């Protein structure tokens, strides 16, 4: 049993220096044998991370280090693979950057953290967590799993996310969601715009809120939603014919609307302090 464990944890590290790389760059490859539902965590200071599904039973990591002022620490636990960029003395945003290209089994859950660079994850049905102050986030094709995204100023794009909880916090980065449906979808934005184009499906709860960022939600004519929208100082528009419903606050025309479309299976709340809100019909 023990030798099997050791064999399973075998890590193969390949270091290639100078092959097809810019001067000073170092390429390293790591391969981990893993079981089901492994958790893959990549903590990077600077640089992009891309994670896509690969073969079952294996996590493969290619790290391109921009200089020798950064190291890659890697470890494997029973159900985890942890990769961390470790800055050495004198490293800065350029010299400390690492580019990660990773493949993992589709049932893996993925945690990516990088201050800048693109964080890309696609094709998983394990939880996906992406964070970074300036990171540009792109997550797509995730089903039956939770998606959590936190950025300050980087834009966020989410495409084809189904059947899980989605929670997004962003300050100034725009948030664009296409075909994002699930039991719970929440976006908390400051000045970033929120654009949602989807069905508001699944009988879920959808909360899209901002401080000053505009909110534009596009849904099909057959959508089944109970919607409440309100902007304290911004304009509010609605393309749907709503069956009116009671709210706890007065509905001021031009600043708020509330009602139902179809069977009102899902709950949609669009709130902004001074952003414009527009519920569009596709």
């Amino acid at each position, binding site marked *: 049993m023990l030798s099997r464990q050791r064999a399973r944890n075998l890590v193969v590290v390949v270091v290639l220096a100078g092959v097809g790389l810019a001067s000073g760059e170092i390429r390293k490859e790591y391969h981990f044998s893993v079981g089901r539902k492994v*958790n893959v*965590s990549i*903590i990077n*200071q600077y640089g992009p991370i891309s994670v896509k599904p690969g073969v079952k039973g294996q996590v493969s990591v290619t790290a391109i280090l921009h200089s020798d002022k950064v190291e890659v620490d890697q470890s494997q636990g*029973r*159900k985890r693979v942890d990769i*961390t960029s470790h800055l050495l003395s004198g490293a*800065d*945003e350029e010299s400390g950057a690492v580019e990660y290209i990773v493949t993992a089994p589709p049932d893996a*859950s993925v*945690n990516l*953290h990088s*201050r800048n660079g693109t964080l890309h994850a696609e094709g998983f049905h*394990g*939880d996906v*967590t992406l*964070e*970074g*102050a*300036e990171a540009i986030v792109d997550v797509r094709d995730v089903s039956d799993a*939770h998606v*959590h995204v*936190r*950025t*300050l*100023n980087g834009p966020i794009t989410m495409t084809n996310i189904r059947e899980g909880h989605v929670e997004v*916090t962003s*300050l*100034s980065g725009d948030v664009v969601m296409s075909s994002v449906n699930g039991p719970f979808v929440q976006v*908390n934005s*400051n*000045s970033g715009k929120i654009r949602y184009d989807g069905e508001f499906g699944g009988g879920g709860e959808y909360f899209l*809120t901002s*401080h000053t960022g505009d909110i534009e939600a596009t849904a099909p004519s057959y959508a089944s939603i109970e919607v409440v929208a*309100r902007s*304290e100082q911004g304009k509010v528009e609605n393309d749907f014919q709503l069956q009116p419903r009671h709210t*706890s*606050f007065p509905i001021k025309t031009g600043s708020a609307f509330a009602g139902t479309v179809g069977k009102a299976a899902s709950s949609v709340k669009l*709130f902004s*302090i*001074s952003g414009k809100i527009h519920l569009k019909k596709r």
Partner: protein
Amino acid sequence: MNCLEFEELLPEFLEGVESHEQQTHLRSCSACSDLVSELNTICRQARLLQASDEPSPRVWHAIRRQLRDEGLVRSQAEKGGLTMLPGGAHHRSMRWMLPVAAGLLVTLGVVRYEQRERSTPPMMTQSSLRGAAPLSTGASSSSISGQGLADESVANANEDEQLLNALGAEGSSLRAAYRTDLQDVNGYIRDAEESARKHPNDEVAQQYLMNAYEQRATVYELALDRSQP
């Protein structure tokens, strides 16, 4: 005793309530003997299922966030001031306490706002009542209790300056970016409080406030938290 009668009493037998008749039957009946062995095997092997799986890190993140939102965790600062150490060590000491303090902002900001409005004791936990850092919502404090808000504004600005100083090694453009972020979230907090004043007991206004403090906590965490737990 036949097999049917034996199986009728099997649940008690497996609990240790054995009769002489049952023992006799077992000795002579291989089918019932096998049945008992198999059920005992299942019972023994069941323990393998205890603590055999592990939740994703997301669960702890969510718990930690909620604990902060509810004011159930408190920062090092409340135990006796921030630890100001020279150079990089200052950054490392801040790194632990500031996200926790930032998390307190979410709950205490809302609760203290309500306290000012209603002049009733806040529903705070015992831990959050012990010397929690005062909060402010930003520079403008025209509407109510100007002195109180001004005090909190100063305290908040001090916290923000400490955060920016802790990032001193990171470069001026990065500090400028975080300074802008803090201005944005403080502006959101101001406007959210204004909205709450105009619409007391309004859930939407309360939600704005919660969202604004959540964003403030996110700025602190992402500014300082280099690695996930």
